[in-house]
């Protein structure tokens, strides 16, 4: 669990040092994309903990979900409907589910209890 956290911190450091800013018009898409990415990361962690990790699924899910979420937000803006809400609900829901899996795994592992 340490290496991914280090990676996250490193990424945050790089992002802070980067001189680029997201234009306000695109910040909503970026937010939705970030949500999708978080979902993928949590999913990847959960899968790795369960031993079901697949590199291709993880990578494709990460970028694919981010792009799809941002794309949905964009289309929704063009159509005048808040379609990005669909992405937020879907990824938010899955985020909690994945977090639940991680939580139970960690609890079982460190507390040496078998109840799921």
């Amino acid at each position: 669990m340490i290496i991914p956290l280090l990676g996250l911190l490193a990424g945050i450091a790089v992002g802070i040092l980067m001189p680029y800013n997201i234009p306000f018009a695109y910040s909503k898409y970026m937010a939705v994309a970030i949500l999708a990415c978080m979902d993928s990361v949590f999913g990847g962690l959960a899968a790795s903990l369960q031993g079901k990790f697949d590199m291709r699924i993880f990578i494709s899910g990460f970028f694919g979900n981010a792009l799809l979420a941002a794309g949905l937000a964009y289309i929704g803006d063009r159509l005048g409907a808040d379609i990005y809400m669909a992405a937020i609900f879907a990824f938010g829901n899955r985020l909690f589910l994945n977090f639940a899996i991680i939580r139970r795994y960690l609890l079982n592992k460190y507390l040496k209890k078998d109840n799921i």
Partner: protein
Amino acid sequence: MKNRGIQITIALICMVLGMMLAVQFKSIETINSAGVGKLRAEELQFALNAEKEKLKNALSALAEMEKKLEEYHDAASKNDRIAAIMQEDLERAKMLAGLTTVQGEGIIVKLDDSKLRNNQEEVNENYFIIHDSDILLVINELRASDAEAISLNDERVIATSQIRCAGPVLSINDTTTSAPFNIKAIGDAAKLESGLRMRGGVVDALQQWGIEVTISREARLVIPKYNGVITHKYAYPVKEEVVSQ
């Protein structure tokens, strides 16, 4: 934890995620620190334009008002008697319209029906009494002689006065009056009298039928004001450009 490769992969992806998060944080921070979101920029621009337009209108109105005020000030500084002048104009207009009692030099014309007897059957009896046309002739002649105010039996003759026979009596200003008729006129007494007494003039014509005409010059005559209400429903002033069409 079993596979270091998986950990590295997740770490890399987490790095990308961290970058995205940091950049997004920074962007949102910048936007928020700018005060108002750019989302409202268009709305604010619209409001700004509206306010600018309002300001422009208000300024032009102000300039107009200031100009007017300046004109008033100019007039006031030049002559502090605007009200007095306006009052003077009003008085003059009222006098010309016959709405004030006036006095001055003039003549009194007394007209009375003929005392002659109509001996001839074929001559109309009407020739021996005074008619509206006789009065009108007299008044017309007085006006031609520059009478400034005229009354008939103390009814002021104004621009809208009617003089007409109403049966055995005479109607003027919607009131009835009868012979003898006292016609008062203010003006140059000598001119008024000579106008009436002109050879072949009004007095000659009336006296032909025995109608009694007596003219007396007065140094001071008082002619009452018109007591009715002058109404107008149809006549309104026109502007210059309309007239010139």
